[in-house]
């Protein structure tokens, strides 16, 4: 058993860390305030290869492993959780299903624009009445000659506002439940696609979370992803991988907040001593650090299992659950250690506290993760 990163993984982590320190950290507060990731930063991240980390070189990716991808999302999220999910939703939820379920033709057609960052990817599952209950999706498709016609709405779509490439889930007949679902590759700048709304959120405010309407959207038949009727399986397998990305994002948020709290506890003096001299603060730091390390082991293990091509669905559910709960716990305590300053937007932990919560909700709420884990145990 070996808990060491490989030399290549360490080079990647350090390189991403240096990049984040210089290019992202200084503007993370601005990204949150202005609700957008600047185009120039997207270009720089694209040049770094952030949008194609583990996608094979043949499709314009870097061809690295899932572990490297987790490290990338973690390091980015230490400074900016918005950028963490920007990369994660794009990679795990759009590039990944294309890679796993796409035909060679589809991969060659769609992946290079995604891995180069020319187009930003997203997944369109959630609807107003279909959240945790994916099988009750009502957006419908109908075959019409050499294309499909799609009608319906989607909401809460991360990266939706970028109007790049989307993996859209629709049903042939809602009465068929999960058996009616199919997945389609959609160019979101096509006619028939309308962005209805950009949500105003508690955290990860730099990312777009958009609501869509599809009005007789024509999708060429060759854009069907995987087999017809296999949409549910595609969605579940995709979310499996995606959870590693979200867990890595949560781990990054927790790590970022911990770093700020530790530093602050050494600098801030009350009663003639630095805060870190008080045992109650020390115990907080110990608890925070231990929870981060627990989560890290689970996240890295799930990524390692993905790379080893063994079934990792329980591990990905556990790592997402534990890392997100570590993130909300650690950011809450980080604010507490900062006292009143922690509540003020000038201090980064204020943003991190708001950013952390979503990791317990999206890509399957933690209640759904507990269902996944317990099903594997008792079935």
């Amino acid at each position: 058993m070996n808990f060491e990163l490989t030399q290549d993984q360490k080079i990647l982590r350090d390189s991403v860390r240096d990049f984040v320190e210089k290019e992202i950290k200084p503007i993370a507060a601005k990204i949150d305030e202005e609700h957008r990731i600047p185009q120039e930063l997207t270009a720089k991240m694209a040049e770094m290869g952030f949008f194609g980390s583990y996608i094979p070189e043949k499709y314009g990716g870097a061809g690295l492993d899932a572990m490297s991808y987790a490290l990338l999302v973690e390091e980015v999220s230490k400074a900016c959780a918005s950028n963490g999910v920007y990369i994660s939703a794009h990679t795990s939820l759009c590039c990944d299903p294309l890679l796993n379920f796409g035909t060679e033709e589809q991969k060659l057609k769609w992946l290079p624009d995604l891995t180069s960052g020319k187009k930003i990817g997203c997944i369109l599952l959630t609807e107003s009445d279909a959240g945790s209950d994916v099988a009750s999706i009502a957006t419908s498709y109908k075959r019409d000659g050499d294309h499909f016609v799609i009608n319906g709405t989607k909401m809460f779509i991360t990266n939706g506002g970028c109007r790049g490439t989307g993996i859209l889930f629709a049903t042939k007949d809602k009465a068929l439940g999960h058996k009616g679902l199919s997945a389609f590759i959609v160019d979101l700048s096509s006619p028939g696609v309308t962005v209805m709304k950009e949500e105003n959120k508690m955290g990860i405010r730099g990312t777009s979370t958009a609501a869509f309407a599809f009005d007789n959207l024509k999708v060429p038949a060759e854009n069907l992803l995987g087999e017809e009727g296999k949409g549910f399986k595609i969605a579940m397998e995709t979310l499996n991988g995606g959870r590693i990305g979200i867990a890595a994002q949560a781990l990054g948020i927790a790590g970022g907040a911990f770093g700020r709290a530790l530093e602050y506890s050494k600098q801030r003096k009350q009663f003639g001593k630095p805060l870190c001299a008080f045992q109650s603060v020390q115990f907080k730091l110990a608890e925070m650090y231990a929870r981060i390390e627990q989560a890290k082991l689970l996240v890295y293990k799930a990524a390692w299992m993905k790379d080893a091509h063994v079934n990792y669905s329980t591990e990905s559910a556990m790592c997402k659950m534990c890392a997100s709960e570590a993130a909300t716990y650690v950011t809450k305590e980080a604010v507490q250690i900062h006292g009143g300053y922690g509540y003020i937007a000038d201090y980064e932990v204020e943003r991190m506290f708001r950013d952390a919560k979503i990791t317990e909700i999206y890509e399957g709420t933690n209640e759904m993760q507990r269902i996944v884990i317990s099903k594997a145990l008792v079935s």
Partner: protein
Amino acid sequence: MKILVCIKQIPDMASKFKPNAAGSWFSEADLAFRMNEYDEYAVEEAVKLREKDPASELAVLSVGPARVVEALKKALAMGCDRAVHVPDEEAYRKDPWQIASIIAGYAKKGNFDIIFTGMQSQDRGSAQIGPLLAGMLGFSCVTTAIGFSLEGRTATAKRELEGGAKGVVKAALPAVITCQLGLNTPRYPTLPNIMKAKKKEIAVLNAAELSSEAALAGTEKFYAPVKKGTGLVLEGGDAAALAGKLIDVLKEKTTVLRG
């Protein structure tokens, strides 16, 4: 054009250093290592030169224990073509003369036109490797370069002199250039280039076959300075008065401020 860049891996300078058991150098336990900062400037300058001439070839070399392969891989990911590792678990015990001799032993056979090194290492800070190497090879040598260009077989380098003045020197190739902060901004290894670097060659050479020079100077002792508590705390009075006092002290005791 054949280019060589020599790099060293050093501990993260923010680490807590402890002497090793023999008290001869620092203990490596619990330390994280990275490429010496000045060597990053050297790699960047070498890669820039390499990119200007597709026919050129750029090798990166490091003498040191197995861990230095990580620094070599980083240099490959930044754009070097191939790497040379001279494994030496006890490189820290060798003096600059011996290390330079090993590098010269390799460089002599390589027909290099130009060799870049860092101005000094962040840990030992002897700043001797570049000049020694130039002497051993009979190359011209420019130290502490903060600007560099090449025309034909003539290198032009800008140097930072004492007190902030600048100087420009020209040197005929073959030459050794030691690189200083300000020369350039080292690139980040990109993800695709980290992947590509995995396929690049890392040759392993035997130190003993490259040089058998004895040390000219050995490190006797490594220890933390005794705490003297001579720090100065300015207290009392308003901010303006304190600032005035601080300026007086800086003028008197340091070179930060003048006249």
